[in-house]
């Protein structure tokens, strides 16, 4: 009806959460996954052709080796290895270490990816550091950008601006497109390789997307926290949110989190309120574990879940190595392995 846009103004916009159904139907495959290592806050998985490399705090480790490969002056927030073995590391301080060089001028490097000789850098926000992402979300910011850095000359060009926390990036092998996840807009989007208009390829995800990595059959998308009605409601209530940010410690905010806290001070624990021994079904979860496999057209094919009552929440990174998905559960302090054939559905 021609009056619908006008009427919709009066109807108000509904706060709707996309359902987890179809390929995203909940299961416990992530919860039941094999544990490769119990490490503190693992993140930024990469494969150098010989072993899996991961970040844990300031240190870079090889999987299965206790001694770190390298340590940095700040928490590692992004990592990429080029086909030629060149290492790029993003830090919470904003610096990006490329070979022996330090690239400055970024505030929040959230993801890195080599595209030929160039390095793609996701700068999540101009206002906050990567470890402080929740402030960016609660502040309704959209100051992220994607940059192409010439790995040899060090020159850089901005490909897209005004993004709502770009948190993962991949350059398509065949076409000249760059696909990235935009966490606060709950979508995967695409831009031409040389920059240009941003278009959605996978909109309306039921969780906040994070790193995206290629696999032989498509892509792996890590999603680090679930969307829920309560948080969406808080994001709409500006006065309430301003008071909350001002008066309450950030770990008690009604906001997404990587891990379910176990403090009795927190009213909603581990995705559920138990009252008189009964688990209240309505209580929203602030953390969740979700990994989604995508086909070459970025359509979800299968998913792996650690549900509200699970342990392996806050999945920030995943890669496929020799027919296994290696998954970093930053919230669950574990690196997991799942047989890639299990997720066929």
């Amino acid at each position, binding site marked *: *009806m021609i009056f*619908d846009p006008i009427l*919709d103004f009066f*109807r*108000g916009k*509904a*706060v*709707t*959460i*996309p*359902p987890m*159904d*179809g*390929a995203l*139907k909940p299961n416990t495959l992530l919860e039941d996954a094999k544990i490769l290592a119990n490490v503190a806050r693992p993140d930024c998985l990469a494969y150098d052709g010989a072993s899996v490399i991961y970040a844990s705090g300031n240190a870079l480790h090889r999987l299965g080796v206790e001694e770190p490969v390298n340590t940095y002056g700040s928490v590692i927030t992004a990592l990429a290895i080029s086909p030629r073995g060149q290492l790029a590391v993003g830090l919470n301080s904003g610096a990006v270490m490329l070979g022996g060089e330090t690239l400055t001028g970024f505030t929040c490097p959230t993801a890195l990816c080599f595209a030929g000789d160039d390095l793609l850098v996701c700068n999540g926000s101009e206002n906050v550091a990567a470890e402080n992402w929740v402030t960016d979300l609660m502040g309704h910011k959209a100051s992220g950008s994607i940059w192409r850095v010439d790995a040899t000359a060090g020159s850089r060009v901005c490909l897209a601006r005004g993004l709502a926390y770009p948190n993962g990036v991949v350059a398509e092998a065949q076409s000249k497109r760059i696909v990235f996840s935009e966490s606060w807009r709950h979508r995967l989007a695409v831009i031409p390789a040389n920059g240009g208009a941003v278009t959605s390829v996978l*909109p*309306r995800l039921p969780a906040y997307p994070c790193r995206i990595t290629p696999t032989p059959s498509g892509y792996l998308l890590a999603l680090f926290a679930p969307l829920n009605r309560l948080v969406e409601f808080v994001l709409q209530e500006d006065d309430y949110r301003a008071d909350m940010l001002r008066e309450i410690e950030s770990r008690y905010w009604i906001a997404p989190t990587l891990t379910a806290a176990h403090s009795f001070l927190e009213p909603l624990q581990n995705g559920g309120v138990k009252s008189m021994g009964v688990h209240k079904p309505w209580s929203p979860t602030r953390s969740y574990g979700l990994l989604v496999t995508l086909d070459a057209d970025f*359509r979800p094919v299968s998913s792996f879940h650690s549900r509200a009552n699970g342990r392996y929440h806050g999945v920030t990174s995943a890669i496929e190595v020799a027919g296994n998905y290696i998954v970093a559960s930053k919230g669950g302090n574990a690196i997991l392995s799942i047989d890639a054939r299990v997720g066929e*559905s």
Partner: protein
Amino acid sequence: MAPIIEMRNITKSYRGVPAVKNVDFTLEKGEIHALLGENGAGKSTLTKIIAGVVEASSGEMKHQGQTVSYGTPFEALSHGIAMVFQETSLVPSMTVAQNIYLGEEKFLNRLRGIYISAQQFLQSLNFTVDPTATVATLGAAKRQMVEIARAVHHKADVIIFDEPTATLTPEEKRHFFALMRRLKSSGVSIIFITHALEEALAHATRISILRDGELVASGKASEFDRDKVVRAMVGRNLTNEIYNRKRTAETIRKRGAQVLSVRDISMGSMVRNTSFSIFERQITGIFGLIGSGRTETFKVVSGINKRDFLRGGEIEFDGRPVRYTVPAEAVRDGIVYVTEDRKLEGFFETMSIAENFYSGVLAAGLEKHSIISFREMRAIAADWSKRLDVKAINSNARVVELSGGNQQKVVIGKGLAQKPRLVIFDEPTRGVDVGAIAEIHQFINQLADDGLAVVVISSYLPEIMNLSDRILVCRQGRVVEEVSPLEASEEKIMFAAVH
């Protein structure tokens, strides 16, 4: 003590199809007897025989030791048997008080007097209904209350409640069950049909379970638990040729692209914050008991009903937000709803088969000419009659003259002539003979193989399990569970539907 109602070998057939078969049923004085079963198990038919709404084809019924056969509900009521119907039988243009006193009027009536006594009576039942309100202005729950009040007012010694709590709020339910216990203690016998197993287990003295028209279990409520009830309700013989298709991972179709995304849609109390997706190249089965909101949800999707004005949720079709105000808009976008009530909403019964098919084409705006072309109409009719194997003398035959199965095929053909992308079948094989069921199932499968998104809403579990590539279970106005056919069992689906 002799039972107040005793039925022996009761059978009731509709055109040779038995709705209840050789049922023995007894109702003791002062007991609450819960009657359970799936949709179409014969519960309503059995109670309608007791209440004189329909007559048994064979068998014997005794009321207080006397062999009886009530020809009308009035006759049964005058002998103390009252029935509260699922579909309310009140007169909408009269007030609540007038409805309660209907049939008991004195020669001269003082309206004020009726209102006062009705007010006192309703208060004694803890029902908050205004006796001066016209019934047409009341919601479903209040109408149900008036219906219950009327049955109680007639001082019947047997009261039959058919799904009395489906529309009541928890508070109203509490009052209702208190009333039921009060009636029981005063010696009234109650038959209580419900889909809510907790209600039956909590409040009934005895439980009887019907399945496919036969009484499969009967005993004290204390002898039953939830699992036993569910098993008895669904434990049918699945050897029927139509429904014995073995589902394997290979026979389940892979998902295509997402066609429909429904997020948090609400419509009154029938659809409440439901969310789901529908994919092309797949049959999505929707299972739910009556009142679970499954039909209403898809009527909202197809523009027949409107979702709530404010905070009614969002629907995206092909990635585009839509809000249909009339079905024609949905039809033009490629959404077709094949109704469950074909006689009322499905076809023009006095029009020919060809005209019915062509009406679908006209509705979608797919006609080739600006004026009606009889040649085009005949060509379309010939094409669809052949594809669907409609058995009729010719395409000029009126639809009302066809059998149920062929009528259903006309309704399906009328919808498919609109060249849809999403087809919603609501109870596609209800009232259809076995031969036609197989043909309709084959046709539905063919549609999904051809790449359409297909939704099949059914309250018949074997049909859902046989057809679907994924199963969504509805309860209380929302989709509560998604089940893969590989892991589905009747017990599992029923469990999700009633818990």
